[in-house]
Structure formats: structure tokens, C-alpha cells
């Protein structure tokens, strides 16, 4: 009843806001058009700045005193178990909150996890974890903490989860989204529900990552 009332009330929003939703896609395409030239130009500028920085650090350019730190608060930690990993990171699945202190890197079972706030959603509590193994990206995981999980579970249910595996007693359902080439996995761990979006190169990679996460 309440939801229906809200839905009705939304029907009274300003014409301008309705039109905005129609024209917004054009604005986006204009932005993307700009991005076409902006990206290479930005890349060139960054490259030149990088060269200058290297020269400066190596003492070839400018001051006798190299810059000690480029500004990154970079931490590297090795964990032996998922629990240790989880306990070391406050609110295990909200790793991105550490971003206040800078980038965060950790090594876990030979897999380097580089966490960062989701590039496309910098204002939101969803975090991007890029997993590297032997300098190869094996997966990108979007982690959705706590309250957003239900919304994701619903999406997963709508996808009518196609596969289900059991890893050390933890049932994991996952679905493949054909358009986006990602997997969506839903599982229950330590009394909590989690939903994670995986962008792996293969189904095998997904299962491998899940196995590492859940088998400890």
C-alpha cells in the first residue's frame, strides 16, 4: 500500500526531470565523445609527468633530494587465512573504507588484491577489488557491503541462478549475465548473506576465487 502510494506520488514529479531522463542518454554520449580525445591526451600528459618524476627521483633533474614518497599510503600484508584477512580488515567486506588512508594492497594465497572504490561509483559503498596473480588480472570483484546485499540478491534471483556449487559446506549460487560477461554469486557465510559480482575471465577462475574465499 505504501509502496503504491509512493509510486503514485512519483507520477507528480516535474516535467523537467522526466525530460532529463530522456535527454540524459544524449548527454552521456557527448561525454563519451569528449572522452575519445581526452583519454589519449591525458595519457600523454601522465606519461610525460611520469618521466619527469623518474628523472627527478633519480637525481638527473632538479633538486639533489629525491621526493621520498609520491603520496600513496601503500600497505602490503600477507594473510594465511580468510579469517585472518577478514579480522585484519574492519568490517571484512567493506574494505574500501580504508581508502580514506590511500590505496590498499594485500597478498593472499599468492593473489594480490588491490582494493579501490568502484571506479564508476566513487560516491557509493561498493568497492572494487582487482585480483592479480603472477602479474595477470584474474578477476575483478565488486563487493557490496551489508544493506545493499538484498538488492543484489533480488537481481540474482531475477537471473534465475543457473549454477550452484558447494564449497566446504557453503552453498554458492551464481549466475552469468550474458550481456555484461559477469557472474553474480550469492552465498551465506558466518551467519551473513553476501552477494558479489565477479568479472573473471572464466568460470574456472570464479570457482577458484570462491574456493579460496570460502575454504579456509
Amino acid at each position, binding site marked *: 500500500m505504501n509502496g503504491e502510494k*509512493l509510486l503514485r506520488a512519483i507520477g507528480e514529479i516535474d516535467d523537467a526531470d522526466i525530460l532529463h531522463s530522456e535527454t540524459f542518454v544524449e548527454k552521456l554520449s557527448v561525454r*563519451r565523445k569528449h572522452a575519445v580525445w581526452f583519454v589519449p591526451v591525458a595519457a600523454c600528459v601522465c606519461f610525460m609527468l611520469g618521466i619527469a618524476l623518474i628523472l627527478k627521483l633519480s637525481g638527473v633533474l632538479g633538486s639533489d633530494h629525491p621526493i621520498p614518497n609520491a603520496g600513496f599510503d601503500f600497505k602490503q600484508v600477507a594473510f594465511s587465512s580468510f579469517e585472518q584477512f577478514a579480522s585484519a580488515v574492519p568490517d571484512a567486506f567493506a574494505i574500501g573504507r580504508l581508502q580514506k588512508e590511500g590505496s590498499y594492497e594485500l597478498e593472499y594465497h599468492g593473489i594480490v588484491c588491490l582494493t579501490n572504490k568502484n571506479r564508476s561509483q566513487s560516491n557509493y559503498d561498493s568497492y572494487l577489488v582487482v585480483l592479480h596473480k603472477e602479474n595477470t588480472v584474474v578477476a575483478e570483484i565488486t563487493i557490496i557491503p551489508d544493506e545493499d546485499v538484498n538488492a543484489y540478491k533480488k537481481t540474482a534471483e531475477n537471473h534465475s541462478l543457473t549454477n550452484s556449487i558447494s564449497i566446504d559446506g557453503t552453498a554458492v549460487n551464481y549466475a552469468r549475465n550474458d550481456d555484461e560477461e559477469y557472474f553474480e554469486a550469492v552465498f551465506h557465510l558466518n551467519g551473513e548473506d553476501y552477494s558479489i559480482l565477479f568479472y573473471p575471465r572464466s568460470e574456472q577462475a570464479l570457482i577458484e576465487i570462491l574456493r579460496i574465499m570460502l575454504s579456509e
Partner: protein
Amino acid sequence: MDDTKIIDLYFARDETAIGETDRKYGAYCYTVAHNILSIHEDAEECVNDTWLRTWNSIPSQRPQVLKLFLMRITRNLSLDRFKAIKAKKRGSGETELAIEELSECIPGAGDVLEQIMERELSQLIREFVHALPDVERAIFVRRFYFLDSVKAIAVRYGMSEGSIMTRLSRTRKKLGKILEKEMS
């Protein structure tokens, strides 16, 4: 045909106005009706009812943007029909989901929104939507005004479904806080 000319036909009580409206905006109105009802026949009937309602409303009203004027009528008629369908337990997709999603952002249980007058609620929502950032506003309107599916919105804006879901979730949460504040 130009919108102004179509409206002039209504004012002249010329029945070709309906045909011209149908030709220009039939598909547009049908999409929204179908988003809400999910049943082809019901959606078509709603669009036909829209033309009748428009015929009875113009003159007396002169819409500034004909497309949006028609959209509001179609949306309201479709929601009325949806309610009737729901009473008969025939159920339908996106509207059920949208209502469920919106219900989640309402604080407390029961008909708490009854505390807020209808007009007050509309004003509150209007201001809330208007104040949203560009992307969130567009996504919110597509989902809860046009009742587009998450997948359709993702395709429309070239984003992932996950990103759309997250943004919607955050926006609903914001709305929930505002409603809570309003009710306290």
C-alpha cells in the same frame, strides 16, 4: 505533425486529433502501459483510454508538453488498472517489483505514509527527485516513473546492471531517510 497543431485539432473538436496523437505517441504510451501491466491487451486498452481521457481534457486544459501530458494520463490509468488486476490476483512484473523496492525504503511498518498528506508527499518527492545528481535522477525516473526494468536502464545508459542496482539502492535509502525525517 507538430504538437501545437495536434492540440489545435483537439480545440477544434476534430477527431483526427486522436489518430495523429496515436501515430506520434502511441508507441511511447504503450511502452509505459506495458511496463506497468505486462499484458499486451491491457496495455492497449489503457492507451485507448488515454486518447479518450485526452479528448475529454483538451480543451479546458492546454498541455505545455503534449508527450508528458499523455504520459501522465497513461501512467495513472495503467496504475489504476494494475490495482484492479492485482485485486484479481493476476499480478504483473515490473510494477510489483518497483512497489516492493519502494516499500523497502519506507521506515516502520503499516500504512505509515498515511501520516503524510498526498499533496505533501508529492511535493516532497518532487523536491527530492529534482535535487538528485544527474545520473541518479535519470535512473530513478526511468525505474519508478517509466517503470523500466533494471536491464533496460542499463542498456539505455550504457552501464552495468550492478551499477544501476547500487545507485537505485542508494537513492532509495536517501528517500527513506527523508521520509523518516518528515514523519518524525
